[in-house]
C-alpha cells in the first residue's frame, strides 16, 4: 500500500514537472520567432514597443498555465 502511494506521488511529481517543462518549451519555441520580429519592428519604429511587448508576452501564458497545473498537482502529493 505504502509503495503504491509512493508511486502515485512520484507520478504526480513527474506530471507537475512535465506540465511546467513542456509549457516552458512551448513558450520558448513561440518567443524564439516573435522576439526577433518585434525587435526588428521596434528598430524601424520605436512606437511599436507597446504592441511588441504585447506579442512577446502573449505565449508566456503557456508556461504560466503549466506552472498553475504543476502547483495544483504538487498540492495533491
Amino acid at each position, binding site marked *: 500500500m505504502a509503495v503504491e502511494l509512493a508511486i502515485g506521488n512520484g507520478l504526480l511529481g513527474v506530471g507537475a514537472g512535465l506540465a511546467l517543462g513542456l509549457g516552458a518549451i512551448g513558450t520558448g519555441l513561440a518567443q524564439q520567432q516573435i522576439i526577433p520580429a518585434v525587435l526588428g519592428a521596434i528598430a524601424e519604429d520605436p512606437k511599436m514597443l*507597446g504592441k511588441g511587448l*504585447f506579442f512577446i*508576452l502573449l505565449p508566456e501564458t503557456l508556461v504560466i498555465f503549466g506552472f498553475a497545473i504543476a502547483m495544483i498537482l*504538487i*498540492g495533491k502529493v
Partner: protein
Amino acid sequence: MIKPERMSKLFIVGPKSTLSNVVSTLHKLKAAHFIEHKKDEYDLCSPLEQLEKTSSLLVQTRSMITHLNISGEVKETKELKLDDLEKGLTDIKENVNKHVENIKSKEDELSIISEQKKILKLLTMLDLSPSIFQNSGYINSYLGYVSDADIKEKISSITENFEIFTMQEDKKTFVALFVEAAKSEEAEVELSNANFSEIDTNSVISLKGPAKECFEGLIKNEGKMGKEIQAGKNTLKELAKKHKSYLLGTENFLSTETDKAQAPLSFGSTKETFFMSAFVPKKDIQSIRKQLQDSASGNLYFEEQKLGDAEEIPIKLNNKGYTKQFEFFTNIYSLPKYDEFDPTSLMAYTFPIFMGFMLGDVAYGIIIAALFYYLKKKFPVGSNFFNIMISAGISTMIFGILFGEVLGFEPWHGLIVRTHDFDMLMAIAVITGVVHVNFGLLLGFILEFKNHGIWQAITHKMSWVLIQIGALLFIGPLMGLVSFPELHSEIGMWVLLVGIFLLYKAEGFIGIIELPTIISHILSYARLMAVGLASVFIAVMVNQFATFLFHKGILFIPLALIALIIGQTFALALGILSPSLHSVRLHYVEFFTKFYSGGGKEFSAFGAEKEKSIL
C-alpha cells in the same frame, strides 16, 4: 478624465493683414491642432515674409552650434530683432569659420605627413633617399610588395640595366626596383605576375636628403602641427563658452520664428483673406476666441464646426496628478480613439497593485522605490516612468508587509504565507481575473451601447458575461470545481447556450472559435500567483544557499555574504523586470482587449514643444 480631452473644431477667417498677429497669438496659446488645408478652389496661404531670412539665419546658427559643439537647454526665449541677429551672427561666423578652416587645413597636412611617414619608414629600411623616385625619363622606379622572392632573377632575364633592393617581410617581399625606361613594360609584366602591390611615392619625392633625416624632420613638423591644432581647438572652446547662451537663445528664437512663418502653409487663402481650421480643447474655446480676436483688432470671423469622423479628431489625454504619469503606458500601447475610454486612470491603480502582489517584499519595495527615486533625480527625462516604478515599489512594500516577507525571509507571520498557501493565492488571482476582465467587459458594454446601441452591446459584450455565468453553473459542477443543486446546472446550461448564441450573432463562427479565450484570459491572471511564487522561491533558494555556506565555518562567511549579495541582486533584477512586464501585459492583453482598440492620433498643438520621453 476617463475620456480624452473634449475637442471643438474651430474655423477662422480673417484679413491677411492680421495673419502675422494671429499666428503669433496661436503660437503663444499652444492650444490649436491645425487641420491642413488641401488645395481646392482656394489656394494655400503663402508663408510669412520673414521665412526666407529666419530659415537662412537658422541654418547658419545651427552650423555654428555644431562647429562649436555646443549643447544645452535655453531657459527663456528673448524677443530679438532679425537685423541685429544678422549682424551679430555674421561677426561670430567669420571668427569661427577662420579657426575651423585653419584647423581643417592643419589636419589635412597632418594626414599627409602620416602618409609620408609610413613610406619613409619603409625606405629607411632599404636605406634609400625618397628623391630618387623622381621621374627621370630614362629610368622608371617601382616601390611595393611582391609575393615572389625570385623577382631579381626574373628582371635580370629582361635587362641588365636595372637596380633592385629587396627585403623579406613575413611572406611578402618588399622591393624597390629601378629599371631602364625602354624595358619598363616587360618589367611591369613580371611584377604583375609576382602580384605586385604598389606603394605610391608621389607624396615623398619632393623631400630632400636620406629617408631617415626626412623622417625625423616630419616628426618635428608633426609635433608643431599638433600643437597648433590644439591651440585652434582651445580657441574654439573659448568661443563656444563665450557665445553659448547667445547662440542657443538665437537658435531657439529663430526656430520659433521659422515655425510661425511656416504656419500659414496649413491655411487656405483668397486674395485678401486667409482661413484656417483647427481642433482646440473645448474648455478653452472662449478664451482662445477672445485672445485671437484681440490680436486681430476684432476683424476675425469664427465658426464652430461639427467634429466629424471620430477617427480624425486628435487625442489629448486629460489626466491630472497621480494618474498623469501613467499616460506613459497608454502612449506606448496606442492612444485611444476620440469616442473610447482613456485607460490611463484605470491602469494607474491596478498596475502597482498587480506588481506589488507579484513581488510583495518589504526590502525589495524599499530598494525599488529608492532606486527609481534616484534615477528620477538623475534623469528627469524619464520621470514619468520612474514615478510609476516608485509607486510600484511602495505597493510592493505594502504587500510585503501583508505577506511577511523581507528579502525572501519571513520575519513575521503574514496574512498569507506565500510559500504554503498556494490555493489561497490561486483563488485570489483567479477572482482578480474575473473582476478585472468583467470590468473591462462592462466598459466595453457602455461604449458599444453609446456608439452602436443596446443590441450590439448585448451581443458583443453581455454575451461573454452570460457565457461565464453559464460555464460556472453548468461546467463547474461537472468538473467538480463547485457544487450546486441540480436545478442550477440546468439553468447554467441554458444561460451558456444563450450566451453562445448571442456571441454567434455578433461575431459569427469566429466568435465560437474564440470561446475558450475567455477562460484563458481569466486563468491568465494565475500569473499573479505564478510570477510571484517564482520570485519568492528564487529569493528563498538564494537565502538557503547563503545560510548553508554561513554554517560551514568562519572562513565561509565572506563567501556566504557574496553569494547573498549576488543572488539577491539577481532576484531583485528579475523581480523588477518580470512582475512589471506581466502586470503591463495583464492590462494590455486581458483587460484592454475587452473595450479598447486605440489608434487615435496625437494632439500636437502649434507652438507646443514635443514632450521628451525616455523612449
